[in-house]
């Protein structure tokens, strides 16, 4: 029985309103990036204005956007790959060969995320410096992958649990080794889930600000540092900050939107039949 058209229209209206309400701050930020500084802080807020590209010009002139973007891409990708490489075997082992300790291990892994970063800043800074990892992509990748590893393990664990063990059992009886079991059966089956986890991990690494600010200076600085450099100077800066932020989130937003279908599919719990 299809709902009446009034109900559908009402639904559409509510849906659109909700979506626009959620998106509005971002829209406002992008709009502000095309205003002059004075217009950006005008009261009442300016909705119709003459757009200008001067903010983008100022931002791009001042800092090498591509270098920052390259670093962000490298760090996000690298951390995600490293985390996946460590997490897939671990999640496999915990999902299919659980022991009494499994739940404790999972909880313990999550607890490693519970130490507020600011509390370990000095120890980590000293450690990284003695290891020569300061201001290197590798150093940042290590840090970010450690931050993201517990989540990746958890999510992969949840996805692997969806897989009926009979399938793996069948392949084992067919003589597949453990590695073959993982790479030829499990991974293809769970690709959507793995992709979704990877995407989530990339988003978190992309937006990671604390360690990027503190462990890098020039060579490995990411887009979060780029954005921070336009934040809170003396004087009017909101238009320029909006421009810098738009440039900083554009890549991940576009990438996320493009692979959104994949993400949604992958996050379907219980979809693997």
């Amino acid at each position, binding site marked *: 029985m299809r709902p009446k058209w009034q109900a*559908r229209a009402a639904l559409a209206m509510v*849906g659109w309103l909700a979506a626009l309400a959620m998106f509005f701050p971002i829209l406002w*930020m992008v709009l502000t990036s095309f205003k002059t500084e004075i217009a950006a802080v005008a009261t009442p*807020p300016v909705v119709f204005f003459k757009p200008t590209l001067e903010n983008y010009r100022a931002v791009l002139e001042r800092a090498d956007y591509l270098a920052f973007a390259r670093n962000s891409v490298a760090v996000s990708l690298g951390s995600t790959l490293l985390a996946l490489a*460590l997490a897939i075997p*671990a999640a496999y082992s915990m999902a299919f060969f659980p022991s009494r300790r499994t739940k404790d291990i999972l909880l313990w*892994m999550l*607890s490693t995320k519970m130490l507020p970063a600011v509390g370990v800043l000095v120890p980590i800074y000293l450690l990284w410096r003695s290891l020569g990892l300061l201001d290197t992509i590798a150093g940042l990748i290590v840090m970010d992958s450690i931050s993201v590893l517990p989540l990746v393990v958890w999510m992969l664990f949840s996805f692997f649990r969806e897989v009926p063990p009979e399938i793996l059992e069948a392949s084992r009886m067919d003589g597949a080794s453990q590695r073959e079991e993982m790479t030829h059966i499990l991974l293809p089956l769970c690709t959507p889930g793995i992709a979704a986890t990877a995407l989530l991990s990339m988003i978190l690494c992309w937006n990671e600000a604390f360690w990027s600010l503190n462990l890098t200076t020039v060579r490995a600085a990411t887009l979060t540092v780029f*954005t921070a450099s336009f934040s809170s100077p003396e004087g009017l800066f909101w238009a320029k900050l909006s421009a810098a932020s738009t440039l900083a989130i554009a890549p991940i937003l576009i990438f996320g939107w493009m692979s959104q279908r994949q993400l949604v599919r992958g996050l379907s719990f219980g979809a693997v039949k």
Partner: protein
Amino acid sequence: MTGTKPARQKRSFRTVPLLAPSIFVLFLWMVVPLAMTLWFSAENYNLLSPGKNSFAGLGNYRDLLTSRALWIAMGNTLFLVGAVLVITLVFGTLLSVLLDSEFPGRGICRLLVVAPFFVMPTVSALIWKNMFMNPVFGVFAWITRSLGIGTIDFFSSMPLLAIVVIVAWEWTPFAVLILLPALQSLNREQKEAARLDGAGPIALFYHIELPHLRRPMAVVAMIEVIFFLSLFAEIYVTTGGGPGLASTNLAFLIFRDALLGWDVGRASAGGVFAIILANIVALFLMRVVGRGLEDMR
């Protein structure tokens, strides 16, 4: 209930090398910085007086536990975590239900709803602080003035709530990202059958959709709690912990000690405290929510 489950073998030692690398890495991460933190917490270590370190024993902990700031911060932390969790779950569910139904442009709406999660927390906070909540030139001020209500100074009168709003805005899309596909994977036939039996939309929601969402909700809850316990950027950028200590949470308190007071000793003690608190919260959460995760298909 099916018969025996043959696949859940006891862990053979073959699996140890699989699990080992992750555990090893995390263990290093746990042990080395944690050990250093524990060590520093027992020292009088001020960054601006290097070389004058001395053993403090439990001194830092005593200072910490007797400062009223700690208890206020703890309360704020718990409130922040709880409030945002509830809001994101409720609105996440509602939005997911909305986006699950058919209406034109649903795909685009989904993209719009998901977008806030991609924005850097510092930028989100700045947008909200300056473009929306600023009592003079913010958008909200303009709205309330046009409605004749006058201006509300969010960050002074309700700082913690303002932060809750900002964080909820950032993380509700995350809840939607997890809950929506779960909803969509719900068997259509089951829903149709229930509807034919005369179930209204509310009953449908309550008896069929909601139970199905228990597991994804558990995942959302666990992940969000871990992140919210150490919320920092939003507070730093908007209220700076004020007015007074009204919006200081544990992470910000540690920051204040570490990077304003340069007292690494006390900050480390705060860090240890934060871990203990987080573990308690996580254990509690596991108990409440862990059942959802344990559910077999």
